[in-house]
């Protein structure tokens, strides 16, 4: 079962080459992906920009080093953001010589395209494979808590389950940032995947007084309106629309709401409890005097926070749990290919 690190790195690199091929032919996948994901064609195009197509040597070596070798890996993909299969398969390929992939029934497009482009007998699509049929090695499961629990309860003894669950992103705008510039940088992170990714920021903490938070919220509203024109939001599900309606009315009552045709930004008065918005380009802006106060506000939702974006990621990291990936604003959807997106304990 043992492969050298060089061999594992090379296997991951072959997958990246396949990813480049898929990216180059992305136009052919757009209609099918729009249908599967609910994104507009422009939204799919924007999402493709987050598909990892290359990585430097250190990143790939870090990814390989993070992944223990396994006899085989069966990857169970849920309806994650549509580019997520690349990293999932890369992690599996780094771990094992043999990889089987069960794509999401609702969104199998990119998994299928990657495996087709890879042309590697070691990576096989198995759409109908039951996890109970896996008799050795590991299962890497991506999805909601219920999906993960169902997989854990169905596996055979001795099979290791590595789970990557749902989460959310937060942004931290430090005192040093220009609020207009920070809003412009954050907007594409919000617009990508219509905010359905676990890296997508849903709460933006602004270091400073309430006026500064309000200024940032207004600026973000303007930026998201501009993004609406450039990359229209797709259709929300009925439940997403319901959650959005409820959140907007709640925030109009307790705070201040800036509502666009397909987005909303709200600010809360100091001290109010966090009202994390639903996906669909909705952002809650919270002003806090310093990063210690931000950390206190993050604490109740810390276990859900997968990513933080900031004008100063180094400082902002102190305010979020250590497992959260830190990026500069505008890069939240593209963390380095150095391991799983979700670094919470699995």
């Amino acid at each position, binding site marked *: 079962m043992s492969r050298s690190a060089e061999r594992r790195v090379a296997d991951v690199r072959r997958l990246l080459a396949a990813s480049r091929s898929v990216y180059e032919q992305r136009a052919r996948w757009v209609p099918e992906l729009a249908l599967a994901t609910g994104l507009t064609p422009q939204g799919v195009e924007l999402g493709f920009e987050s598909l990892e197509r290359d990585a430097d040597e250190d990143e790939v070596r870090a990814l390989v080093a993070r992944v223990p070798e396994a006899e085989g890996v069966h990857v169970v993909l*849920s*309806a994650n953001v549509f580019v997520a299969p690349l990293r999932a398969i890369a992690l599996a390929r780094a771990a094992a010589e043999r990889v089987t992939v069960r794509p999401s029934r609702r969104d199998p497009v990119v998994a299928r395209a990657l495996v087709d482009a890879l042309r590697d007998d070691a990576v096989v699509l198995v759409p109908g494979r039951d996890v109970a049929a896996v008799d050795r090695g590991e299962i890497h499961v991506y999805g909601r808590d219920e999906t993960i629990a169902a997989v854990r309860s169905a596996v055979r003894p001795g099979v290791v389950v590595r789970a990557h669950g749902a989460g*959310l992103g937060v942004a931290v705008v430090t005192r040093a940032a220009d609020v207009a510039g920070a809003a412009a940088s954050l907007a594409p992170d919000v617009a990508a995947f219509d905010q359905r990714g676990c890296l*997508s920021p849903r709460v933006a903490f602004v270091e400073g007084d309430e006026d500064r938070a309000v200024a940032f919220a207004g600026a973000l509203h303007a930026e998201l309106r501009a993004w609406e024109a450039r990359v229209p939001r797709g259709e929300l599900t009925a439940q997403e629309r319901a959650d959005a*309606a*409820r959140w907007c*009315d709640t925030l109009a009552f307790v705070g201040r709401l800036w509502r666009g045709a397909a987005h909303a930004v709200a600010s809360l*008065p100091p001290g109010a409890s966090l009202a994390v918005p*639903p996906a669909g380009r909705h952002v809650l802006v919270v002003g806090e005097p310093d990063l210690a106060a931000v950390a206190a506000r993050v604490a109740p939702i810390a276990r859900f926070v997968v990513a933080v974006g900031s004008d100063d990621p180094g400082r902002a990291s102190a305010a979020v749990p250590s497992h959260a990936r830190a990026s500069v604003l505008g890069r939240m959807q593209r963390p380095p290919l150095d391991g799983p997106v979700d670094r919470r304990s699995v």
Partner: protein
Amino acid sequence: MTAARESDALHERARAFVRAFERGASMPEPFDALATDLARFQARYVPGYARLCAARGVDTARIARACDAPAVPTDAFKLGRVSAFAPSEAAVVFRTSGTTIGARGEHAMRRTGTYDAAAVAFGRRMLAAGWRERVPVLVVGPSPEEAADSSLTHMCALFVRAFGLPASTERTYFVRAGALDVDGLSVRIAALPRASPALVLATSFALVHLLDASGARSLTLPAGSRVMQTGGFKGKAREVAADELRRAAAGAFGVHERAIVGEYGMTELSSQFWEAVAVDASSPHGVYVEPPWARVVPVDPDTLAPVPHGEVGIARIEDLANVDGAFAVLAQDRVRRVARGFELLGRASGAAPRGCSIALDEMLSGEAAR
């Protein structure tokens, strides 16, 4: 006129509904007349409601129907004050239980007289119907001293005073410090006079705990007794289907299933809704009725417009007794209008997004309405 005097006048109009109901008289004015005046009052004195109306483009000065006024989502009670008066003027503050992210909803009341009159009048009609004498009342829950901020406990205490034996020295409350005293309840039930009925007030989760813990103890109530069952489980007990729990409770208490009467209420409201099983032999379990001063309107969760009769929607509750807070509240429960009232179909689940972002429900589990 000051806010307090305006509020007092509106309370008086709401109380007139209750008095008319008690007398069996027609209502003193149209529902919409008081509802729209409440909306105007609340838009003037509840800053958040003014903002909500503005965000929805509603000028309360121009509305003529209750349904034209925006409803306040229950989440707003967790995040801000929903009151037309200063905190120092509050006579009581009822709180919802906590959520995973820590917020508790608050419903402050400047005066409780309207709430109390409404609860007792409708409770007497739906739960204590036909009883000419006071009865022993046993509460499978904490006392008001122990849970002063629980609207449910407050209501139970009202019922103890209104329907219970005067100045009873017998024990009434059977949850202390969070623990259910099954032995004490069993002993108390055994000592009840057998010639007259008794009333037991319980939440669904308390009933589950009681049934699980009662073992061989007898809980048989005197003939003609009734049991109020309210609320869901909200993670506090193993979940049991409503009809299964009702059957089990009826068996344990030795009463007919129709003596188990369901109640639906929320901390954010001042009125309650009841199954009519004790007063209407043809009314089924699971169908709740409103008093004349409250309405439950199923609305589309997206547009918030009423759905056609018979379709499922989210409960928009218009409560004329909610004078100093929000007369219209948007709950998270799914409801459907039926011939004699409305069906309660459980809580609307939050969206499961198509990506890997977390669903709101995953962050907000463990919430209880009262």
